[in-house]
């Protein structure tokens, strides 16, 4: 085995594209979902900063089909900040996660890495990447998946898998099964050796053969090339399922938290998880205050340095306040995400809510979500104005709306 000191590692983070983040509306109307702030940092920042802990990390690639300019600013800023080159690679069309990796194989292999991490951007976890790498080396396979134990009821929403309890080998893999298979699920975080490209190529050429055979007899082939396309390769069904039980794939189980950030409501939960992780890993980024010079803070709170929070406000737990937001006297914020340039006026209350860019909440107004209600968390889109004394409960408000009466369980279009 090559000494780990000389090995280079690259990380690939799949960020998806504009047709993907639909469940994230109205917040994804303004900003690519991967750049939406979770715990005060863009969603993609969390896997990126986790990559920083990988020894001999040479390069981080973001792969997606958003326009390059949407990521340009962020990519250059984060490269400087982390002192690791970060590059955005735009797919011409969706290739699937394995297909996307394969599509850019020449670039990815440029540094001749010994290992390649593949991470999905919309998962929230502690990303134990160095630990995975170490386990992967011991297993000696071509890939190791991060897995977590979940409740049997929720397992079927994800890729369920069975692993050998002794060797941790992946024995069986099935995506969103109809019947219960296992309470261990795929976290969407992988480490591979370059042999993965051979495995994808093999699958890809098989699909091509099947497609060629089919073309004669099937009208399917006449349909626009999407999922049938020969260069569309899913990682789960096309790679993990066939390679399971062949001593090529192994699992590494995390005992920490894991969530998938599908909906805006989940981003609030994930913000909470990351903020509590900051408490352990980088407590200096969390705000503190006792109500004298700065606002009273309880629990884990992030306040951007450019935000102005009145000392008589009370903030937390689980609050993140983005750049240039203004929080007035006597305001109460609990479990919420306040985005850039928002103004919260005096004595207003925001709880279980996401307040979109440039929105304003009037005096003695409330924006609040009720879990277990139809819409759950209250979400105000970009530039929404909630007038004085108005109560917005468990509602979703699309951009540029003005609310002068209280609403509950409504979608304001």
């Amino acid at each position, binding site marked *: 085995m090559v000494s780990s000191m000389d090995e280079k590692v690259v990380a690939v983070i799949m960020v998806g594209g504009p047709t993907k983040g639909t469940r994230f509306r109205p917040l994804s109307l303004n900003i690519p979902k991967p750049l939406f702030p979770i715990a005060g940092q863009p969603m993609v920042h969390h896997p990126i900063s986790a990559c920083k802990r990988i020894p001999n990390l040479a390069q981080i690639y973001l792969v997606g089909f958003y326009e390059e300019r949407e990521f340009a600013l962020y990519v250059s800023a984060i490269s400087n900040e982390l002192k690791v080159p970060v590059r955005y690679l735009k797919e011409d069309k969706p290739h699937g996660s394995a297909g996307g990796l394969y599509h850019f194989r020449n670039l990815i292999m440029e540094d001749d890495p010994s290992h390649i991490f593949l991470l999905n951007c919309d998962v929230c976890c502690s990303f134990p990447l160095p630990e995975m790498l170490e386990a992967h080396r011991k297993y000696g396979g071509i890939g190791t998946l991060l897995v977590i134990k979940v409740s049997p009821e929720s397992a079927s929403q994800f890729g369920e898998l069975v692993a050998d309890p002794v060797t941790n080998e992946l024995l069986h893999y099935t995506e969103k099964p109809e019947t219960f298979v296992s309470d261990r699920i795929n976290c969407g975080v992988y480490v591979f050796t370059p042999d993965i490209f051979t495995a994808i190529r093999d699958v890809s050429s098989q699909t091509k053969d099947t497609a060629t055979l089919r073309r004669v007899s099937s009208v399917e082939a006449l349909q626009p090339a999407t999922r049938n396309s020969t260069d569309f390769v899913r990682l789960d069904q096309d790679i993990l399922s066939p390679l399971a039980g062949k001593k090529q794939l192994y699992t590494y189980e995390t005992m920490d938290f894991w969530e998938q950030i599908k909906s805006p409501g989940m981003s609030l939960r994930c913000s909470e998880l990351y903020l509590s992780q900051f408490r352990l890993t980088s407590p200096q980024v969390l705000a503190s205050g006792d109500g004298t010079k700065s606002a009273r803070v309880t629990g884990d709170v992030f306040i951007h340095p450019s935000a102005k929070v009145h000392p*008589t406000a009370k903030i937390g737990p689980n609050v993140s306040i983005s750049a240039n937001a203004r929080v007035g*006297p*006597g*305001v*109460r914020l*609990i479990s919420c995400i306040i985005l850039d340039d928002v103004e919260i006026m*005096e*004595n207003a*209350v925001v*709880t279980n809510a996401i307040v979109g860019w440039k929105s304003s909440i009037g*005096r*003695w107004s*409330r924006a*609040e979500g009720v879990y277990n209600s139809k819409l759950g968390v209250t979400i105000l889109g970009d530039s929404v104005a909630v007038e004085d*004394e108005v*109560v917005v*409960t468990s509602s979703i408000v699309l951009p540029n709306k003005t609310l002068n009466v*209280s609403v*509950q369980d409504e979608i304001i279009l």
Partner: protein
Amino acid sequence: MIKQIEALKAAGVTEVVLAINHQQPEVMLNFVEEYEKKLEMKITFSQETEPLGTAGPLALARHKLIHESGKPFFVLNSDVICEYPLLEMIEFHKNHGAEASIMVTKVDDPSKYGVVVMEEASEAARVESFVEKPKYFVGDKINAGIYLLNPSVLDRIELRRTSIEKEIFPKIASEKKLYAMVLPGFWMDIGQPKDYLTGQRMYLNYLRKNAPGELLASSGDDVVIGNVMADETAVIGERCLIGPDVVIGAGCVIESGVRLFGCTVMRGVRIKEHACVSDSIVGWDSTVGSWARVADVTVLGKDVQVADAEVIQMSAKPEIIQKV
């Protein structure tokens, strides 16, 4: 009710009997004693042990209502709010010299009420008949719930469940001994919380025109909007915004940053910092927590605690929240 007692005092009444049903007199006892001293009046209770309707309680309190002088007595329904031209009513009663006088008020939708049909549509008219919830127009004057009765009326009432409007008055009217005086100004049935708040608004408006000194003026850091009445013993914090249409009772503590509008805050209530109460009634000795919200015709009973940041609003139907 205090307004009524004060009006009675102004009309020269010396003794008040509060006819109450079987529910808690304990709440009332405290402030009755206080007002007895303050107004130098005798205030007593007459408590029914079973429901006696609107006339039965008069029979129950018969011994308190009959005076050797043979003078008439007032009967006031406590859940109405209006101006109380009681001296004028005494004058009216003396002028017609008959057995009973009732106050009537003009309403827009008489079909909801019992209409009082008078012989002629003048200011002082003899009552001809009563029509309960008329289907077609018979008149637009309804019973305002304020009566001035000679002691002889008591001879007509048995001690049982009896309705004064349906059983006693029609009989007196048929004997041509009942006269009706039209009530000037506003009148409101405040039996329902929403109506109570509307009645309060009308009453504060009346004060604005007739006794603006009773209302709070904007001062210092506190900002007062519109008509606000606060007991002199109430304490109001900084950066509050109060009004319009707010009444704050004795001993209340309104902490800083509180917003109140369209509401009644009864005696001994504490509204904590940054809370907002609108279109609601907060009952005696209740506490509304910091950043809490009470809205939409919510009625908090006596000694209710609203937790910090809690929201209580009855969008669908009014509900009375009692201490558990």
